[in-house]
């Protein structure tokens, strides 16, 4: 176990962590601003992967164009789901949860019907591996890392500095006060939903060529997202980033040094956080 081994473990953790950040950030955003646990988020991720698959493999679209198109398609889907299914239950806590679960089941079931259960894959876009400080990283993964960083930077920038981004933060902090200031709550929610879904779609598009695509991706993704945002703090983007990276590193080191017990670690962390600091690392109570 030499230095390059540890670098590899670290790099693996970074990659895994950024994957989780990509998936969890949109989930956290929705909770922060809309106070909704959007269980369908994982299904949006899955559909983003399928959209990219269909565009690239069936229609021969260029990969990057496919990714952008997928983001747009999923964003539109997110808006539709919000308008027709989430908005009617906007302030009812338990019904919102149930509806989100129902939508998740519906999308998952429809995807299974339409696409079948077989794993599909996208022809590799980038090939080859490079060595970074002795650790191996495939070109595909480098692209994912770069895109993830860009997307997270863009998101953070947007929330902090743009007018609509600030409106979102206002709505998240105090909905009534924001409304009194003339901020349209509904339009803010719609925008939030669109961005969150687009992020999920982007995650799906980015990870699809690395792995494979099937209708079962959603459940696993949303469970990871839940763990990440609980640890990082529901509703906080820095929290989602910190939580995602933390989970990635824990899993990488866990799988390497602790073995099979790693599966339970994520949930134990969740329990610890919820018992001792329920608002998570970066959340606000």
């Amino acid at each position: 176990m030499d230095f390059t081994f540890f670098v590899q473990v670290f790099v693996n953790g970074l990659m895994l962590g950024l994957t989780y950040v990509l998936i969890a950030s949109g989930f956290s955003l929705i909770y922060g601003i809309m106070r909704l646990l959007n269980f369908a988020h994982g299904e949006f991720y899955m559909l983003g992967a399928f959209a990219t698959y269909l565009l690239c493999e069936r229609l021969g679209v260029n990969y990057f164009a496919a990714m952008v198109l997928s983001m747009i398609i999923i964003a539109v889907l997110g808006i539709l789901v919000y308008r027709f299914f989430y908005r009617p239950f906007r302030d009812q806590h338990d019904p919102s949860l149930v509806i989100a679960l129902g939508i998740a089941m519906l999308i998952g079931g429809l995807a299974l019907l339409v696409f079948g259960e077989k794993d599909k894959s996208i022809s590799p876009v980038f090939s080859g591996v490079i060595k970074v400080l002795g650790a191996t990283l495939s070109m595909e993964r480098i692209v994912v890392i770069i895109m993830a960083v860009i997307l997270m930077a863009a998101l953070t920038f947007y929330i902090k500095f743009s007018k609509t981004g600030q409106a979102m933060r206002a709505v998240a902090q105090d909905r009534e006060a924001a409304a009194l200031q003339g901020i349209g709550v509904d339009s803010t929610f719609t925008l939030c939903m669109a961005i969150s879904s687009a992020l999920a779609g982007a995650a799906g598009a980015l990870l699809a060529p690395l792995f494979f695509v099937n209708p079962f991706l959603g459940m696993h993704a949303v469970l990871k997202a839940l763990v990440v945002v609980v640890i990082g703090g529901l509703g906080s983007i820095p929290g989602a980033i910190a939580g995602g990276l933390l989970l990635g590193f824990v899993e990488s080191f866990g799988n390497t040094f602790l073995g099979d017990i790693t599966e339970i670690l994520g949930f134990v962390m969740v329990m610890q956080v919820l018992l001792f600091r329920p608002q998570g690392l970066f959340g606000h109570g």
Partner: protein
Amino acid sequence: MRISKSFWRMIGLILTFGIFCFPSLSFSSSEKVLKMGAIFPLSGRGATWGLAAQKAITVKQKEVNGRGGLNVGGEKYKIEIIWEDDKYNAAAGRMAAEKLVNRDKVKFIHGSQSSAVILAVQPITEPNKILFLVNSYAKEVLTPDKPYTFRMVLTSNEILQGMYPWMNKTYPSLKNVAFVEPNDASGWSIEKDCKRIAEQNQFQVVFSQFYERGTSDFYPLLNKLIVQKPDFIDFTGAPPGDQALIVKQLRELGYKGKTFSGTTLDPLEFCKIAGVQNAEGHISNTHDLLGAYTTEGQKKYYDDYMAIHGKPFDPVTPKYHLYLDILVQAIEKSGSLDPTQVKETMEKMEEWHTIFGAAKFGGKEHYGIKRQIVTPVYISEIVNGNLVNRGTMLPSLP
């Protein structure tokens, strides 16, 4: 007196249930029909295997019905199969068995790849003396107290008993092996078999780890594995998509040894996910029916399959042909439709003629009861994206 709304509500409830109570109408015809049941994962996860079984069994069913049906003591019976979906879920499988046994009154059931389904269904089939022909990889499925259950497909135990000696013979320089399995029922039981059989064949196990189901990034696990310098890696228990990913990621990380799995795979999909170059040299239990070592029976199966199902040919299907093939032989040999008599015939017969050549039941020593089919194990290698048959070996199962 106004009748309360609750009263109407309850009447409505009872009526809904009542409609349901009436058994399904069946048309009687002059043709004699033998109804059998089949419980397989036909949708959702695992449907690949269930649908493969369905295709193979249908090929045999059409063949038998094409020649007039089963010959039972001079009378001809057409075969009708009632397919139920267990969704790879024990509770659903059990409900399906309830319907088949108690509603449809079948006496023969072909069943699932999920050991949980089989274990949940056996408490219904065994006491009712229903012949249950199964798959799955779990050892507990075949025990001396369950005489009506026969396993019709090779498990990892038998497959690896064929493949590991072959590895010894073909690659004598390989000494160390590493295992990667998913954290689920089949992963666990397969790993036990892998370890035992590898050691029986003088291989040293240098690494064995389970991964969380749903994982697609195996870098952390493989990183640790590669450091142990295994000569080859066995991931028999992993589902096909995961296997392809593991191969791809192994090669990305610079692993140069052999990859191996005691399962059947579809070479097109495998190479698509893993990458053709990465998949080069992968050893598996798949058989190219158009290649070497193919029997006449397998060639006929191929033609029949194409005539019924059309392109593309699914290389995973042939092993499921045995279900109906052997049952038909057993019924015709015993001259009876009584499951107990058919069971006794199956116990007594020493050899069966199948598309794979001669086959028999074994396993008294390993399982405690002679209920495991033993057929030749096929070994192939992926070369340039195609399957190349490398050999066949008959495992011994006393």
